[in-house]
């Protein structure tokens, strides 16, 4: 799933029902996280729903591997967007990304604030924290 594809499909919809349909479709396409990985350590605090996140480095390629899941469809869709943004990036490049800005560009921020927005912010912060640990 690449970002331009996401951008394109979201832009098609003016109404929020349509945008959410796309977001949920993105979520459906995201593989479910095995229950064994849904540990308390992986839980991201500060979201309205449950969000689990793991970040790893493919040592060989020096590229990031993120997997994430949520118990809600919409947040799972938002996670798909965030993952599309960070997955397969070099850690250094990823450190410069700001998924929050991306959401703004996708026209999602207005509707996300503040509780959903805070959720996105919490997830992004978590990613950047873990990036620092990697380095």
């Amino acid at each position, binding site marked *: 799933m690449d970002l331009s594809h996401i951008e394109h499909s979201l832009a098609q919809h003016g109404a929020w*029902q349509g945008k*959410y349909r796309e977001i*949920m479709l993105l979520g459906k396409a995201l593989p479910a996280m095995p229950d064994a990985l849904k540990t308390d350590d992986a839980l991201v605090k500060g979201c309205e729903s449950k969000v689990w996140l793991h970040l790893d480095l493919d040592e060989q390629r020096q590229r990031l591997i993120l997997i994430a899941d949520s*118990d809600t469809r*919409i947040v799972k869709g938002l996670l798909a967007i965030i993952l599309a943004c960070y997955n397969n990036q070099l850690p250094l490049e990823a450190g410069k990304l700001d998924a929050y800005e991306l959401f703004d560009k996708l026209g999602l921020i207005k509707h996300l604030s503040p509780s*959903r927005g805070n959720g996105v912010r919490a997830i992004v912060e978590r990613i950047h924290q873990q990036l620092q640990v990697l380095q």
Partner: protein
Amino acid sequence: MNDNPCTQIRHDFPIFEVSVDDQPLCYLDSAATTQKPNQVIQAVKDFYQSQNANVHRGLHTLSEQATTAYEAVRRKLAQFLNVQSREIVWTSGATASLNLIAYGLSDSLKKDDVILLSPLEHHANIVPWQLAAKRTGARIELLPVDAQGILQLEQAKALIENLKPKVMSICHASNALGNINDVAALIASSKSSGTVTVIDGAQSLLHLRPDLQQLDCDFYVFSAHKALGPTGLGGLYGRYELLNALPVYQSGGEMIDTVSFSGTTFRPAPEKFEPGTPNIAGVIGFGAALDYLAAQDHDALFQHEQSLYQSLLQQLSGIDGIRIWGDTANNVGTVSFNYKNEHHYDLATLLNTHGIAVRSGHHCTQPLMAHLGIEGTIRASLAFYNNQQDISRFIAALKDTISLLEE
């Protein structure tokens, strides 16, 4: 169904002229906070524009007038609840009231004394008691509630007689499910044990207009913002002897008799519990809310709410996969439900795209959700300013949302 009492009344609430996301507002979140009639908004505005002064101790006319108006609302509320004025204490909200009472009653609690609550309680009626229990060694016990979320009255009465609790603190109506508890029967059962009874009236003041002498409780707490009034104001009723015997909670100006560095003496209740400058404009606005309620036919409003509730229930039950919680036979007009395994968060988010304001989540009742074995619900809560159109819009939006989720 006849919307007559409502059509008129709805015009008193300016929020319904507002568009939210380019749609008229469908407000089904009155259990969180009620909307305000023009009369209340105007009273607050008038106060700041032409009467604003601090109360008590001022000799100048503006201050005297503010004091008179402020104290008149205390009398008005006392009348509304059928108690004495000096038994009413103003606080910043139901939460503050419960903290004051739980702190105050701690003094008379000792190890292994029983504080009796129910699994239906709002966190504000749990955590202050947990802290009191921690301070004193008292233990918390729970009244029996079934898997549907309904208090089991006969077992409850037996438990009360058995446990002889020192304190029982119970909601009059559940904020999460809308259930009306038969608190009068529970209070009656506890009389022989000398239990101090506290009623959390946050959800009942507006819908049930309780006569506290009839209920015969020792304490009753409420929030003004849940009964047409301003934010930042609440209060409590306390049977005078019990109230006056509670220790000082917060301290400061206004509530003292004399202060010196060698010792300080306090005034009797209610002043004793009202340090500092109160929410004067809030009290004045709440006075206007009480006047507004007094001018309405309570029975007609209650009937209207109940008929909306029945209609909502009926239409919801017609949707396959809906699971409704709580006691639908005794209810202030709050429907709490789930749809299959769909997350309440997704439902609420999608409903909101139709302009529907409902609450989703645990409703500050995590222990109740644990008891029901769920994470949360969607809660649609009614007030008398709602109408049939709100119900139809909600049901249509819900059906649309469900078909989107089922795609």
